[in-house]
Each structure stands twice: as C-alpha cells, then as structure tokens.
C-alpha cells in the first residue's frame, strides 16, 4: 500500500531530524555548563566593583571626564548584546522588544552599538540607527576582547556625544529562565541618587565619618578604576547573555527532540494500524477465496 510507504519514509526523516537536534542539544548542554560557570564565577567581581563605585560617587566631588554628565547631548548609546546564531527561541526577539522601553523619550535618539550577529540583522531590518557593530566571537569571550568595545563607548561619552549609555542584554536566572534587562552603564550617578533617596538619612549621617582615604590621590586611583569597572560590567553582561544563549538553545533543542519523539510515536501507531488493516483484509480475502473453492 502506498500510504504505508509514505508513513515509513516520514518516520525515517523525523528520526534523522531527531538525531540532529539531539546532537545539538548535547553540544549546547556542554557549552551551557561552561558558560553558566563562567557567568557565576565572575559575578562577585562585577558586583563588588559596582558597589565600590556607587560608594565612591556618592561622596566624591571630583571632576573626571567619566563622572561628568552631559545634559545637552541628544543621543543615548545602547549596547545591544545578542547571540550570533538562531535556534534560541524568543531570546533575541524579546531583547529587541525591550528596546521600546528606551525609545519612549522622544527627545533622545537611541544609537545602537550591536554585539552579535542577530542583533545586527534584526535591528537593521527594523530600520534602527546602528552606530557601530562589534562582531562577537564564537568562542568564549575573554576580558581582553571587551577593551575595544569599552573604549569606543567611553570615548563617545567623554566627547559629549552620548547623554547616557545603556546595556541591553539577556540576564541569566536559571537554565529555564532568562530575561532581557537594561542596565545603565554611564553616568554612574542617577542610580546612586535614586538609591540614596530611599535611605537618605543613613547617607547624610554617614557622610562625615565615611570618607575614603585614597592612595595615591583620588584622580589617579579613579583613572584606573573607572575604565576597569566599565569593562567588568560589559564583560559580565556578555557572559550572562552567553549563558542565556546556550541555556535557551539547549532547552529549544530538547523540546525539538521530544517533539520528534512524539511525532515518531504517532506515526508508528498509524503505520501499525495500517499494517494491521492490511493483514486483516488479506486474511479476509484468503478465507473468502477458500470458501469460494469449497
């Protein structure tokens, strides 16, 4: 019967697909473990560094190019960190959707700096302004790979072109949960102001006995410290989105493998039913033939 042959062919093809998705699942699982470990082990550094800068900017009144705010700049820089490849479910689409929150303010023009192939193609299709494209490597990112990116952004900020700089990336919560998030990289202060409003009394009372001693003078320390902190924040965001990418892909591929298994089961059932029908029909024919002969 023709129907049976078709079903058999479909089973074969679905089995082939399942082999591929399973292989991709295993590869992503291995990458995921590594990426998750890296993201988790660099978290203390970036959070402690962030804490330090928040503590410092709260009480320091030093004029450094990176600590200035540019109220009259018309643009905001948005660093969009996506994946290079697809097969990650809605990860990249959600990420680009998150940009809408930043575009609410009509006075400011969002200029994108994209890191990752998908961000580039998705935003280019939507006709957004792309200021720069820093291609992402397929291997795990080392902190040295971030330097050019950090330098580009800080230079634009220091030359008064960007009012603010944001990072939009996928934060890794767990293997099954990743959410797009926005963090403000520069200037350091507004977030600090917002935080200190909640516990203003504490801040004021601490202001006197709370002065950090600098060795050598503050400008020298901050000169080294600020770029490092910016780099570590970007680096952390890249690691988080790597971990998110591999986790999302692993889950997607696992779903695909499971779905292929279900499909094979369904097809096998129909195949067996058809085969049984055929056998029954044949038996009926044989019996009918035999009766006719008697």
């Amino acid at each position: 019967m023709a129907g049976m042959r078709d079903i058999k062919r479909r089973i074969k093809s679905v089995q082939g697909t399942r082999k591929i998705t399973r292989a991709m699942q295993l590869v992503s699982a291995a990458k995921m473990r590594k990426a998750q470990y890296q993201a988790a082990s660099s978290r203390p550094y970036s959070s402690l560094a962030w804490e330090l800068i928040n503590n410092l900017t709260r009480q320091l009144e030093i004029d450094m190019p990176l600590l200035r705010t540019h109220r009259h700049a018309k643009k905001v820089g948005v660093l969009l960190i996506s994946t290079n490849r697809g097969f990650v479910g809605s990860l990249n689409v959600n990420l680009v959707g998150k940009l809408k929150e930043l575009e609410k303010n009509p006075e400011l023009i969002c200029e994108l700096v994209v890191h990752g192939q998908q961000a580039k193609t998705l935003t280019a299709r939507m006709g957004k302004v792309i200021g720069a494209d820093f291609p992402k490597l397929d291997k795990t990112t080392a902190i040295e790979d971030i330097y050019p990116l950090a330098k580009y952004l800080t230079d634009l900020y220091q030359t008064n072109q960007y009012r603010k700089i944001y990072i939009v990336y996928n934060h890794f919560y767990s293997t099954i949960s990743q959410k797009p998030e926005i963090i403000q990289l520069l200037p350091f202060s507004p977030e600090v102001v917002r935080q200190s409003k909640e516990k203003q009394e504490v801040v004021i009372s601490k202001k006197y006995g709370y002065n950090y001693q600098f060795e050598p003078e503050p400008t020298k320390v901050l000169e080294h410290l600020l770029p490092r902190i910016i780099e570590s924040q970007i680096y952390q965001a890249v690691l988080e989105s790597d971990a998110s990418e591999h986790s999302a892909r692993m889950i997607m591929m696992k779903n695909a493998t499971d779905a292929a298994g279900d499909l094979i089961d369904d097809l096998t059932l129909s195949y067996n039913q058809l085969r049984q029908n055929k056998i029954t029909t044949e038996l009926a024919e044989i019996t009918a033939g035999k009766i006719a002969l008697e």
Partner: protein
Amino acid sequence: MAKINFHLVTPERTLLNKELVSLSCPTDLGQITILPNHVPLVANLVPGELVAKSAAGEEHIHVAGGFIQVNPKGQVIVLADAAEHDYEIDLKGAEEAVQRAKKALTEVRASSEEYAKVTASLERSLTKLHVAKRHARRRSTGLPSEGVFKE
C-alpha cells in the same frame, strides 16, 4: 578580637573569602599592611605578593595589579586583575613568560604603547616568578596553573 572580613576576587573567580588577622599587599606607594579597624581606603595595587594572615596560618598570593578597598563596615575587598596562590604558579611557564617578554622588549622599542605593554607584562611575570621561588620549598604537590597570564 576584631577580624578582617576579606574578599579576593578576579574577573574569573573568587580566590579567597575568609576572616583574616592582617593583610599585606603591594600598592602604588609601597607595601602596606592592613589590620582590623583600618580607616576606609581605596588604593591601586601593583603586581606583587599579597600575604593574608589568618588564625590558621599565612597564605601567599600573587596579584597582577588591581584595587584594594577597605570599606567602613570593616570589609576588605581586593579586586585583582588576576591572582594565583603561590602553589598554583607554573614555575616553568612563568620563567618562559619572562624570557619571552625580555626578548619582545628588545624588538619593540619603536612604539611606546607596545613597549609599555611588554614592560608591564614582564613586571607581572617577574613578580610571579619571585613569589613562586620564594615559597618553592612549601610546594608539596605541583598543582597545574591555570595560565592566567596571556602574553
């Protein structure tokens, strides 16, 4: 008695997180030692040896630069660019790194930026070697280093 709540972190990992009696580290202005109840301080670290003294004994750690922060809560936080325990240092690798850097130094005199980079890398390798050699007799097992330095 007051103790120092100490964190030593690098972008790659958390190296140390324990209570200390005292801490010595190399800064821009020379070696400093921090005891409990130190005033809040922020300083640059230079490549060198960091000695963490706890009730259980001393630990010697090589740091390749970074920052130290003593905050008002009595916590001491070292944000190092890279750091290794003395027993983790790959002695041979460090020696090779010194050789490489010295060789590169003779070649790149022309560009000042490159020169500064190589000098910095040489300094890091030298201090690393120094730390490793000084504590060589304490090395019971040769643990493989993680190759934190990339030339």
